[in-house]
């Protein structure tokens, strides 16, 4: 039962020595996780505890607390991590830091499993920090790139800010209940005033880790890391840790705290979705989409349905990992092709891409499958989980009009925008004419990279959640959902309509765009009459669309960007003035002390003995008299 932790540890150790053993061990741990999942699922929580250490009379225990949520997470984490490991053997082949890479990947997985399995909040915090550290190492894996190093420190700093909140929350909980044990905390039923503060502090930690509203900018920057790492961070481990923590301690949250959480979540979702619309870097689009999906999950938790959030986390893990790995394939093969053809352009910029469906048919299909799940098309898993979230919010908003309605409508808008940017990405990358890539000898990647992608893409269809493609009450949701059964058939109907509408819109917008630009292109050298008859309306349409794009959306983005820049400057100032000042002060202090003690250390053994004896004598006099 506990064996999979052991195997996690082993995999961590072994990947130091033999990098290619690492996927094998992850496979073992994934299998054992599957077994654990099979045993635990739907049953009573499984608890193992042993004494960790004692401070005074306070006995802190460490242990394992396995319930449905954590069993599900264990499965997700090990499975995705295994696929990413396999994929990485292809992606990172030939990289010089591959040993470090694999060991950190194993460590990352291990730390995440620790978060998932830990039975006390303190232990969760320890592993939480380990996850932060591992992500720092992985994001900054290409440490020679200044952007990567900056992004890694940024991610680390943002996590620190959140962790400070987490720590304060922990202290509050400890002083008020005297226990970190999750099972015992769950018994605290009464609503106390401190709970609001404590849970908001915990949520602050979640904000850092899951990239919620004030602290969201590190995640897009984190795209400087290797793409499989992005997949792992986004899908299974790091950002999911925040959502998982919220779902784990959802009994702690008071209604006020839940409202705050919902608002923060929806703001994040809207902002990130709008940002995703205008990005041109393929990985950044995916990053922003992750943030917006996370915002939706957080909103669902705020709406009181952690089951819906976990369901979305589950489906999101698969399709987002699939998307990232697809993007990784695109980047990887284009890089290789560039090296052969001796050309250079930014392969991550989707404006340089296009028409890849002919050259990468497999990736194209996989991307379409995963992307449809992200967009929430019917018959895909994303549809069902999003449906669950929307239903939860609909049930939460009540029948009277209040600010909660705004959240509800905003959630719908977010899902609409999700469709649009997903299809924008698919269209620009895979459809249309080949631009810079036309002359490149692009070939499909090796099987170790295609296999995981295929698995993940297949996992994006609806069957993984429930048999009925329009009803999300499948095997996962029914077990996770313990409270009253709230069901609105109309919601799923509406969302089908809504998403179809969105698909149609995006299809028309982007088809028009490409067509109109083609027309424009043709007009200049073909026929002037044609220009006045058909070209002008299409030109007007095109310019209108671009106007909307530029003015409304870009304006909003700019405002938010300025706000973020200001925040970042403030944080930077804080860093320089206070943090650095403290650090420098301590450094100079220790230098003075070091110079002082250096004089003792002359390399003369007998002098050492003399000093030691004198110290012992002083100590004796001190204690005995």
């Amino acid at each position, binding site marked *: 039962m506990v064996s999979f932790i052991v195997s996690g540890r082993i995999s961590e150790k072994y990947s130091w020595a033999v990098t290619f053993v690492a996927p094998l061990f992850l496979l073992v741990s994934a299998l054992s996780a599957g077994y654990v999942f099979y045993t635990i699922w739907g049953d009573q929580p499984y608890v193992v505890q042993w004494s960790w250490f004692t401070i005074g009379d306070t006995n802190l225990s460490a242990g394992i607390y396995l319930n449905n949520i954590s069993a599900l997470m264990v499965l997700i984490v090990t499975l995705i991590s295994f696929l990413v490991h396999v994929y990485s053997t292809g992606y990172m082949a030939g990289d010089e830091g591959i040993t470090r890479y694999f060991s950190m990947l194993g460590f990352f997985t291990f730390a995440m499993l620790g978060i998932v399995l830990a039975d006390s909040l303190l232990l969760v915090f320890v592993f939480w920090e380990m996850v932060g550290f591992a992500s720092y190492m992985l994001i900054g894996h290409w440490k020679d790139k200044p952007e990567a190093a900056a992004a890694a420190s940024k991610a680390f700093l943002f996590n620190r800010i959140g962790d400070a909140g987490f720590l304060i929350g922990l202290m509050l909980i400890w002083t008020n209940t005297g226990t970190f044990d999750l099972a015992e905390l769950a018994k605290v039923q009464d609503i106390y005033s401190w709970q609001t503060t404590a849970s908001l502090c915990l949520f602050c930690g979640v904000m850092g880790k899951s990239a919620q509203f004030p602290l969201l900018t590190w995640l897009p920057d984190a795209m400087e890391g290797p793409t499989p790492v992005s997949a792992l961070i986004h899908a299974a481990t790091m950002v999911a840790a925040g959502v998982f923590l919220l779902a784990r301690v959802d009994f702690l949250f008071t209604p006020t705290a839940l409202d705050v959480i919902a608002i923060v979540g929806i703001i994040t979702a809207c902002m990130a979705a709008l940002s995703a619309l205008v990005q041109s870097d393929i990985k950044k689009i995916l990053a922003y989409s992750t943030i917006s999906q996370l915002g939706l999950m957080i909103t669902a938790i705020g709406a009181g349905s952690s089951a819906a959030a976990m369901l979305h986390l589950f489906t999101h893990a698969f399709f987002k990992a699939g998307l990232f790995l697809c993007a990784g394939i695109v980047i990887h093969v284009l890089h290789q092709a560039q090296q052969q053809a001796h050309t250079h352009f930014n392969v991550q910029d989707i404006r340089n891409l296009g028409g890849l469906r002919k050259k990468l048919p497999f990736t194209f299909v996989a991307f379409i499958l995963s992307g449809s799940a992200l967009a929430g098309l019917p018959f895909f898993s994303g549809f069902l989980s999003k449906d669950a979230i929307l239903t939860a919010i609909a049930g939460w908003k009540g029948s009277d009009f209040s600010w909660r309605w705004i959240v509800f409508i905003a959630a719908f808008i977010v899902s609409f925008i999700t469709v649009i940017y997903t299809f924008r990405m698919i269209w620009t990358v895979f459809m249309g004419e080949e631009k810079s890539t036309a002359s490149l000898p692009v070939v499909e990647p090796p099987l170790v990279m295609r296999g995981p992608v295929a698995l993940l893409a297949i996992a994006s269809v609806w069957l993984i959640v429930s048999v009925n493609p329009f009803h999300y009450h499948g095997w996962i949701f029914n077990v996770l959902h313990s409270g009253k059964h709230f069901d609105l058939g109309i919601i799923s109907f509406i969302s089908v309509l809504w998403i179809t509408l969105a698909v149609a819109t995006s299809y028309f917008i982007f088809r028009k765009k490409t067509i109109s630009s083609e027309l424009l292109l043709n007009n200049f050298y073909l026929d002037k009459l044609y220009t006045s008859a058909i070209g002008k309306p299409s030109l007007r349409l095109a310019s209108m669309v671009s106007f909307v794009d530029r003015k409304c959306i870009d304006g909003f983005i700019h405002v938010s960007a300025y706000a973020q820049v200001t925040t970042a400057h403030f944080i930077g100032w804080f860093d320089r003035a206070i943090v650095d000042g403290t650090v420098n002060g301590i450094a100079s202090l220790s230098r003075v002390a070091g110079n002082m003690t250096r004089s003792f250390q002359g390399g003369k053994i*007998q*002098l050492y003995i*003399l000093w030691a*004896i*004198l110290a012992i*004598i002083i100590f*004796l*006099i001190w204690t*005995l008299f």
Partner: protein
Amino acid sequence: MSFVTVMFYFFEAVAALAGLSLVFVRNVFYGALLLIVCLLSIAAIYILAFAEFVAVTQILIYAGGVLVVIIFGVMLTAKISGRPLVVKHSNLFGGILASGSLLLLLSYFILEQNFQAQQNDIVPNNPAINSIGFGLMTDFVLPFEVAGILLLIALIGAAVIASTIKSKKI
């Protein structure tokens, strides 16, 4: 004052004097000889303290073994360095301060305590060597074996360290 008492204080005085002069002597060879004198008188004190076996071991091992090895070491190093075996002193003030204050502390505490024998004047009837033999093979058999292994390790280690033949692998 019986003869045994005289012997006891005589040997105590000899040991103390030998230890003290070990501090002042400048020649390593003389130092080794003084140490032999000191150890032998300590062995005599052992006998007077009803620890005959320890005394015999002391004489055998220290006077017969260790000191011989040390004297060999003195001769070997003297041959290599070629310098006279006169030893300089350093840290004299600090050393005297440290050991003097330690001596004061120790004597203060020793004189303050009152040690009482639990069974007064019960001298074991059977010879101590007999019971030591039984003890070594029954209660203390594990430390005994471990000590044997330790001796073996020390023997091999000393031989390896001191050997001048350079192995070609390293």
